[in-house]
């Protein structure tokens, strides 16, 4: 199907279905119930799931296939956002030109940064990309924001003001990002006794793009080009002595993943027309590394899982506060209750990063292949238990017979 083998096609269909049904799947608990805080089916969060999914899928094309660990991919995310907001300011609120420009801008910058950084490999490459990203951050945060030339609007962040030209804007169109008139904030809410499900057009725009990007990434993974990238990770010396120039291959992978990041940045701006420099900071670059490794670097589905996992728990853990904890531990005696709340307190709310750090350590140490490997191991244990169970029964039956004989 679509040039995919059976296994990949199945994976693609599963991702397609899960993405389309996400508003249902992520809201399993009825409104107002005590578990409703674990719901994730509201537009803003669902949009972030798929947008960061795109970011991580692209990052995985570089890191997962070639093994080149870029620590500066958030720079492309930020550039994409700035490019999109400029389109909103100057031309139109339509997201199509905005997204196109963010991909192009990120691609061009990736070409320059990649060309220089890829002269080195290993840790030196990582440091070079980090340096570029921090320079971009500094440029966006202060240098390119002065009264004479204000490209990024510094600390405040770039946003659309009512006196911006918007040459192609017409009064009939919504006054916020839209897709040919369909506002990204228009949401249809379905209520079914107690449950509410939000179908947001912005989410579905992002979801459609993510599905397309996921499909492209499968094609790249399974193409001869993808094989060359894996060969670079495996043995670059052999590749060079086999008559292949590894430099353009890594550069192509770098630019493709930079364009994915730019696309994600453009979509972030399209969902909320604002671009700030903090989007380019090194913590943001680190986050996509965490997503990819947590989910499973080099696997097709891993980065999407990792992005969803981190964004979901970030949201849930940050929302939990001491009041919620007191409710949870209410069944304990008073002293114990306070003690438990004190112990758990540092890991919730603003301390979510502490939990993320611990989770990351656990995954890297016990599941180097990430969540995907975890899933595979669970699958294997179940299969083995089935086999063992039948084997054990036969053994037991034989033993039951032996004493009688």
């Amino acid at each position, binding site marked *: 199907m679509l*040039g995919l083998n059976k296994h990949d096609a199945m994976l693609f269909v599963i991702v397609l279905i899960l993405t389309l049904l996400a508003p249902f799947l992520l809201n399993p608990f009825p409104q107002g119930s005590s578990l409703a805080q674990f719901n994730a089916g509201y537009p803003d969060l669902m949009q972030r799931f798929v947008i960061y999914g795109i970011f991580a899928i692209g990052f995985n094309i570089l890191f997962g296939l070639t093994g080149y660990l870029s620590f500066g991919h958030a720079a492309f995310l930020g550039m994409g956002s700035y490019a999109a907001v400029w389109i909103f300011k100057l031309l139109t609120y339509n997201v199509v030109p905005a997204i196109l420009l963010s991909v192009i801008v990120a691609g061009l910058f990736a070409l320059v940064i990649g060309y220089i950084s890829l002269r080195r490999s290993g840790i030196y490459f990582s440091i070079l990309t980090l340096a570029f990203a921090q320079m971009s951050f500094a440029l966006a945060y202060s240098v390119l924001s002065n009264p004479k030339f204000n490209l990024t609007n510094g600390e405040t962040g770039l946003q659309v003001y009512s006196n911006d030209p918007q040459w192609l804007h017409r009064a009939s169109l919504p006054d916020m990002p839209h897709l040919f008139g369909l506002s990204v904030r228009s949401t249809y809410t379905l209520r079914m006794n107690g449950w509410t499900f939000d179908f947001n057009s912005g989410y579905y725009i992002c979801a459609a793009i993510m599905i397309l990007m996921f499909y*492209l990434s499968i*094609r*790249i993974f*399974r*193409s*001869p*080009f*993808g*094989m*060359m990238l*894996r*060969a670079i*990770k*495996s*043995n670059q*010396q*052999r*590749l*060079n*002595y*086999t*008559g*292949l*120039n*590894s430099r*353009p*291959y890594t550069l*192509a992978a770098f630019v*493709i993943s930079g364009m994915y990041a730019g696309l994600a940045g453009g979509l972030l701006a399209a969902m909320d027309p604002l671009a700030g420099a903090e989007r380019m900071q090194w913590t943001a670059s680190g986050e996509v590394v965490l997503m990819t490794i947590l989910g499973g670097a080099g696997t097709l589905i891993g980065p999407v899982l990792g992005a969803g996992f981190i964004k979901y728990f970030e949201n849930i853990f940050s929302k939990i506060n001491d009041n919620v904890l007191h409710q949870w531990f209410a069944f304990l005696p008073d002293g114990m209750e306070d003690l438990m709340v004190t112990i758990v307190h540092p890991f919730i709310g603003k301390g979510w990063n502490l939990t993320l750090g611990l989770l990351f350590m656990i995954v890297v140490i016990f599941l180097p292949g990430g969540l995907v490997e975890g899933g595979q191991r669970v699958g294997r244990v179940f299969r083995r238990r089935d086999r063992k169970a039948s084997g054990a029964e036969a053994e037991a039956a034989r033993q039951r017979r032996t004493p009688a004989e």
Partner: protein
Amino acid sequence: MGILEVKGVNKRFGGLKALSDVNLSVRENTVHAIIGPNGAGKSTLLNCLVGKLIPDTGSVMFDGQSVLGRKPHEINQMGISRVFQTPEIFGDLTVMENILIPCFARRDGAFRLHAFENFAHEKDLVEKAEAILVDVNMIDKRNMHSASMSRGDKRRLEMAMCLVQEPKLLLLDEPTAGMARADTNNTIDLLRDIKSKRDITMCIIEHDMHVVFSLADRITVLAQGTPLVEDEPENIKGNPKVQEAYLGEAAH
């Protein structure tokens, strides 16, 4: 006029003269061995041929073109394939993929962005790769993870990766170094088999005399960075200069 012509090559590492005035001519469709005791400059010479080192003076011409200053992938595209001392293969890839990569390199050149193409449309290359796997007796291992194979199989695979490119010159850097006798003999058989099946020019750098005398049509003896003699195997055996170079080494 040989396919590979090395003229007046000198290479210095600081105070050490690794190669001094090396002349070498490898004729087409012959197996040419370069032998010599440890430190004779064999590996330095090889590295000058594949673009890893650039000689201080002298010229290296392959098929009428200079290889000096060219990158390894460019030299390979000129028609020189190389087998390493320890087999260099793509360990994370399957045997079939290991063979397909040189096939793509030969057909598409040093770079091509075939990011959305499908292997299903590459029947010609797949057939070519299968043929070479049959040739080296590895077709049953085609879907195996190549890192998990024995060393002998890795050597065989690396050889197949070079052969599938139909190189004008195959360079072998001590192909039996560190091998047990049985493995050495297997490698000799493999190389003989390769030679009997096709027209191929090979240049072998080797320490092991047994291997050299089993395979070579012509031998150059290198000692202290300079060629002592170049002759046919029968004449090399009895040559007093050669005996001195090797015995001299054995004596201290």
